């Protein structure tokens, strides 16, 4: 189901957690709300769920204004970071809870409830554990139970709040892949909150990057990574360096070094140049930006070198891990892809 958030503002004790946020969530997509802590991403998720009510603004489920609906009326599936399983119930009872509490008129017969719960446990690969209690399961298994429990009510939207936040790195990666598979198979409109950009980029169809109660940018992982629309997004997603530059007739200059031509609207005056460590070419000494090696560390298959460009400016570039260089050696490079933002 489409979910539209329009001009929503949320204050807690007069303190604004969200300013005028609008977001269109398309039916069937998997969208990530990504941002640092305090960016309002969890608040936005809870507003969609109906666990919080907006101070102003409306939330639509499909074409219907759902702003005044209670949590129960919204029929959403919510998965919490710390699972929030009912520990006095078996796994099977946990999963069937949402169907069992329905009023008699809409409640499926007991046999049907059981069949559906077992089917879901099969979907989340926990068949055979239905008689266990939550404390007898590992963290990853518990989160899968939580997901099955949320799916049992055939939710209009599936909302996940940092679903893998409490798990260790290995389990996280597994569950991430697995959540994507589940999503592709069931097709539920899914919104998940994360502060892990790798998770968001890998898992989602679209990302909504948030900061300080605002939406910074919404787009596909490729758009967000390759065409960040603000310095915040550029800095927050992936590795990046920024340098102060001057534009003269569309030419980008750092000190006396020309870097390239500006293709955007900025043509004159001071600006900020952003580029990623892997988007650089190493050039002949003196033919580009030159700096001395300040420090280096191994990152995956490459070596990330921090260069001191003088005047306290540092830039990070990637070199092949087997390329030899000495400490405080001079290296010249030129950014291959970059983005310009106005200064200040």
């Amino acid at each position: 189901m489409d979910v539209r958030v329009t001009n929503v503002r949320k204050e807690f004790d007069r303190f604004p957690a969200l300013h005028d946020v609008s977001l269109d969530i398309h039916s069937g997509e998997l969208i990530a709300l990504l941002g640092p802590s305090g960016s309002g991403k969890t608040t936005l998720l809870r507003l969609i769920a109906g666990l919080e009510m907006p101070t102003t603004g409306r939330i639509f489920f499909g074409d219907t204004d759902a702003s005044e609906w209670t949590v129960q009326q919204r029929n959403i599936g919510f998965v919490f970071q710390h699972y929030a399983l009912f520990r006095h119930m078996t796994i099977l009872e946990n999963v069937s809870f949402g169907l069992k509490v329905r009023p008699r008129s809409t409640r499926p017969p007991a046999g049907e409830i059981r069949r559906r719960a077992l089917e879901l446990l099969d979907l989340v690969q926990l068949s055979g554990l239905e008689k266990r209690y939550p404390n007898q399961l590992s963290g990853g298994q518990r989160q899968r139970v939580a997901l099955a429990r949320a799916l049992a009510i055939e939710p209009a939207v599936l909302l996940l709040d940092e679903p893998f936040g409490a798990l260790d790195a290995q389990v996280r990666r597994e569950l991430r892949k697995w959540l994507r598979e589940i999503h592709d198979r069931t097709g539920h409109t899914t919104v998940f909150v994360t502060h892990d950009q790798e998770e968001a980029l890998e898992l989602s169809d679209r990302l909504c990057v948030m900061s300080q109660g605002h939406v910074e940018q919404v787009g596909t992982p490729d758009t967000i990574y390759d065409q960040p629309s603000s310095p915040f997004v550029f800095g927050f997603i992936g590795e990046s360096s920024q340098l102060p530059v001057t534009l003269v007739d569309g030419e980008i200059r750092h000190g006396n070094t020309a870097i390239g031509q500006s293709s955007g609207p900025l043509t004159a005056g001071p600006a900020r140049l952003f580029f990623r460590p892997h988007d650089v070419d190493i050039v002949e000494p003196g033919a580009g930006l030159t700096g001395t090696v300040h420090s280096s560390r191994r990152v995956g298959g490459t070596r990330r070198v921090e260069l001191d460009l003088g005047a306290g400016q540092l830039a990070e570039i990637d070199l092949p891990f087997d390329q030899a260089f000495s400490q405080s050696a001079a290296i010249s490079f030129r950014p291959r892809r970059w983005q310009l933002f106005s200064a200040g």
Partner: protein
Amino acid sequence: MGFTLAYFSLIIMLPLLALAIRSAGLGPMGFWAAATDPRVLGALRVSFVTALIAAAINVVFGTLIAWVLVRYRFPGRRIFDAIIDLPFALPTAVAGIALTAIYAPNGVVGSLFAPLGWRIAYTPAGIVIAMVFIGLPFVVRTIQPILEEVSHEVEEASATLGASRFQTITRVLLPSLTPAILTGFALAFARGVGEYGSIIFIAGNIPFVSEIAPLLIYIRLQEFNYVGATVIATVMLLISFALLFAINLIQAWSRRRYGYGH
């Protein structure tokens, strides 16, 4: 381990053993006769029935109080929280005299009920009230920490799954509090059975009606009937132990199931 065992033997087992040996001096027939004396049976019945009623009342209201203390923020909450413990600290005789003054037919509360023909002080009802007073903190203090542990998220999860507030309370919250409620019940009950100081003032101490077993023990002692006193004490111990042991078993079972402390 050795230290614990030695300490446990010295402090708890030794007095209990002495009690058993003393009452065993009577022989099985004599013991049975002393234990089934009508006045003894009456006193035991009064003690255990009132303690069970009082513990049941405490469980209901203690849970409510713990709930309010954990989930609501209101001015004076800390003071309210501290007052809960007062029955622990107050000398029981003081509590007994105060309660008697209030619930006697000419007391503040007692005078409201007197015209209706209801007497509270000097009846088993008075005993229950004294036991409720001294037992309340046990229930509140056992439930409070567990309630704090049951995260608000669990309630929210229940709501997102479509459960009404009432369903959340009866199907999610109360069941997860059951072990704590049982512990609170056991403690309040044990305290009630053993209570002496506050009750003797308010009970009226009429044999077969409002005479509690601990008082009868005291009376036997004053009659220099030491064996008679130890017999009552032994019977009380056996019944209390059986009840507490049963409650403990239920707890261990539920703890294994729900995994508290994990």
